[in-house]
């Protein structure tokens, strides 16, 4: 199975080298594609130094657009599977073979690395926990299937899903919406337990005001998408 890892990165010069190296040392042959979303620092150089394929977006398009670039690249280059990993080092590449094996044996079209399928040391803040719980319940209700970690950006998808993502991918806060989008297209989604590291460098871009916008935007998108049956 021809596979690649896509890492969207915006101003991640401090962590991107290590993240790429860790993926390359995870024990399997896999291409690493870093989508540099118009960074103002040395993200592109650091990623290249680590040996990644680097796609430099001329302008900052936001997380959704950056991730979608990776899926587009995968479609154009005939990959069979894509794994999405954050550029800040929070996702552990040790779980990569496990995620891909579920795709390979046809158990799922998308596999989500969940922090909550099993008890883990990951302790989100009260509000983050509340948000995660809210979206998990809402999406479980809309899809009729149980999901524990709808905001996880650690995902592996097969060819069918990457083609769908190349056509449409939400521009911001995409993770919860894509689950409903894929279920509407009859895709199989599975969650498996993964470990989550603490953020090594930089800080989360989510501020309290953005959190409120995030909750409203995603809830609207989920409910309207469900109504439209897109």
């Amino acid at each position, binding site marked *: 199975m021809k596979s690649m890892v896509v890492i969207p990165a915006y101003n991640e010069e401090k962590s991107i080298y290590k993240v790429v190296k860790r993926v390359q040392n995870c024990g399997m042959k896999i291409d690493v594609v870093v*989508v540099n979303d118009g960074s103002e620092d040395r993200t592109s150089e650091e990623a290249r130094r680590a040996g990644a*394929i*680097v*796609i*430099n*977006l*001329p*302008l900052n*398009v936001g997380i959704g*657009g950056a991730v*979608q*670039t990776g899926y*587009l*690249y995968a479609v*154009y280059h005939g990959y069979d599977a894509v794994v999405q990993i954050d550029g800040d080092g929070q996702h552990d590449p040790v779980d990569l073979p496990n995620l891909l094996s579920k795709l390979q044996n046809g158990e799922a079209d998308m596999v989500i690395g969940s922090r909550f399928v099993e008890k883990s040391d990951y302790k989100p803040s009260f509000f983050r926990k509340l948000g995660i719980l809210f979206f998990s319940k809402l999406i479980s209700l809309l899809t009729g299937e149980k999901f524990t970690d709808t905001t996880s950006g650690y995902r592996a998808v097969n060819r069918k899903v990457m083609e769908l993502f190349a056509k449409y991918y939400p*521009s911001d806060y995409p993770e919860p919406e894509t689950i409903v989008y894929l279920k509407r297209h009859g895709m199989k989604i599975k969650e498996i337990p993964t470990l989550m590291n603490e953020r090594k460098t930089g800080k989360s871009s989510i501020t309290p005001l953005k959190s409120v916008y995030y909750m409203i935007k995603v809830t609207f998108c989920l409910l309207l998408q469900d109504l439209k049956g897109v």
Partner: protein
Amino acid sequence: MSIYMVSFLVSVIFLIITLYFFKSRRLDFRYCIFFILLSVVLMVISFNVDWVEEAAKLLGVYYAPALLFAFALVFILSVIVYLAVFITNITKRVTRLNQEVAILKEKLEKYEEDRSHEDR
């Protein structure tokens, strides 16, 4: 100068500005037509205020200018919604263009790198 003359002159100035932007190719005809029509309607109304009063009576509006405000509000809101849809569409296209350019650039860099290796 009466208020009717003032409103007529304002409409003419509005029309001239619209045509100026169209002539200098800063405004596309499909948007220009909105504003040309609006200017013409305003010019006609300026000298036919009784039409507005008749229309207000017909619709049961006691204060005729309120009807004008209501129409203006609906018009402005429609234009804003139309422009918001248009901007969303443009944003999507710019994003896709960006993505395609970035992927092509990567391909070109790889091709040039391979060629320079062959040359050596």
